[in-house]
């Protein structure tokens, strides 16, 4: 029974949502909305469970005087401060807006900017013309990188045109191929889950 119930729930919910998407049957839309509300409720409980896991792990670090106990302390303090500001004062209150504007926003932007540095070092480390294919990747990469920046025009007026052609012809063709095959693959995975063929996520891995 432990094995069958989750599969039955998945199948019924999956078929219901598919029917709702494709059909205008009165009542189905409300039912689908209700199912989505349930999903939000389940997500809230999952969040509580995950938050407990996070807090417990970092509390363990602190009590065990782990070498990163200070980091764990900082994490717990900021987590509880944000939770208290959001729950007790509301997300439009000054305390929460302060956290959002002065901590979350600059930290997020800093991390996004970090990708630029990692990208630079990855390009320096990995872009070697070791084979014909690698050389093609290297050359097209440089053309696109320079051609898409304003400096491309100054280097050679044809460079931006080449970059645009590369992006809109060979790149687009490849992207479309990957998108279409991924989409079919995604539909396949979803159908396999709905029909109960795939059930690893339920802790029912194959031998």
């Amino acid at each position: 029974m432990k094995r069958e119930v989750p599969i039955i729930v998945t199948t019924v919910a999956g078929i219901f949502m598919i029917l709702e998407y494709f059909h205008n049957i009165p009542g189905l839309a409300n039912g689908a909305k209700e199912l989505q509300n349930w999903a939000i409720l389940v997500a809230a409980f999952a969040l509580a469970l995950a938050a407990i896991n996070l807090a417990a792990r970092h509390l363990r670090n602190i009590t065990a005087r782990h070498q990163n106990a200070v980091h764990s302390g900082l994490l717990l303090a900021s987590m509880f401060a944000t939770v208290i500001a959001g729950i007790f004062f509301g997300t439009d209150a000054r305390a929460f807006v302060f956290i959002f504007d002065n901590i979350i926003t600059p930290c997020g932007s800093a991390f996004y900017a970090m990708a630029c540095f990692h990208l630079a070092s990855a390009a320096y480390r990995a872009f070697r013309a070791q084979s014909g294919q690698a050389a093609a990747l290297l050359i097209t990469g440089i053309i696109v990188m320079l051609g898409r920046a304003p400096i491309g025009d100054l280097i050679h007026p044809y460079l931006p045109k080449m970059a645009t052609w590369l992006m809109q012809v060979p790149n687009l063709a490849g992207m479309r191929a990957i998108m279409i095959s991924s989409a079919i693959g995604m539909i396949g995975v979803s159908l396999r889950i709905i029909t109960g063929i795939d059930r690893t996520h339920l802790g029912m891995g194959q031998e």
Partner: protein
Amino acid sequence: MDVLMKLGDIDKRVLYVLLVLVLLIPMVRPIGIRISISHWTTKAYEQLSRLEPGDTVICDFGYNVDGAPDVEPIAKAIFRDLFDRNIKIITVSLNAQGPMIAEKLLLPYEESGKVYGTDFCNLGFMAGGETALAAYARDLKRTFPRDWRGNTTSTLPILQGITGAPDTKAWIFFTDSSAEAWVRQVGDLDVPMIGAVITVAAPQAEPFVHSGQLSGLLTGLRSAAEYEIVTNRPGGAVAAMDAQSLGHILITIFIVFGNISYFVKRSKELAGREGVQ
């Protein structure tokens, strides 16, 4: 020979420091490299320039603050253009951080005289991902009974006569991920849709412009700079373009260094093997 070989082993911290310098210096002392206008930006601008004063557009905020450095300059450039032409803006958010980001961008216009509820409004965020998007694209007031500021949406003058996206003149979405959600959920509604996506998502979004599912596409900081230029309102994005150009040049130089070193090492190895034989 040794020097050439060492070109491939430069400490990455040196690269990082140089990158900081080439990005920072042009911000302080701009060089003024000329920016050409791409086909995509022209297409998006042409679509938006057809709007008349008094028309209403929906701006959907689907990015986090993390993606803001690349996407937000587009939102700023479009807001400035639309508000200057007295076009009304309704903001909605597919992302939880969206309403706060929208509030921040709308505040300067409110301070300069635009009236909340008449010239613009912020309907807030609706949980539920694509399902929520599909719902509010079809019925704004039903999906958002109250706006982000707590007003009853049915009383807002800007929403009078507007049920969903087809009653507006354009749908502009800003996202730091894929454009697919909007293409799937808003694409079949009768409204021109313009995507403003993070630079790395551009190749994924471009097929939707070709297929006509998007009426225009703006991608990252470069498009923001181009939009600022076509609307004759140069701002922060234009200033950042010099930094981008120099950054790309530096990375290219380091890639060339790496390859010189690789070929020198390889030729030395080959010569060594021939010597042994």
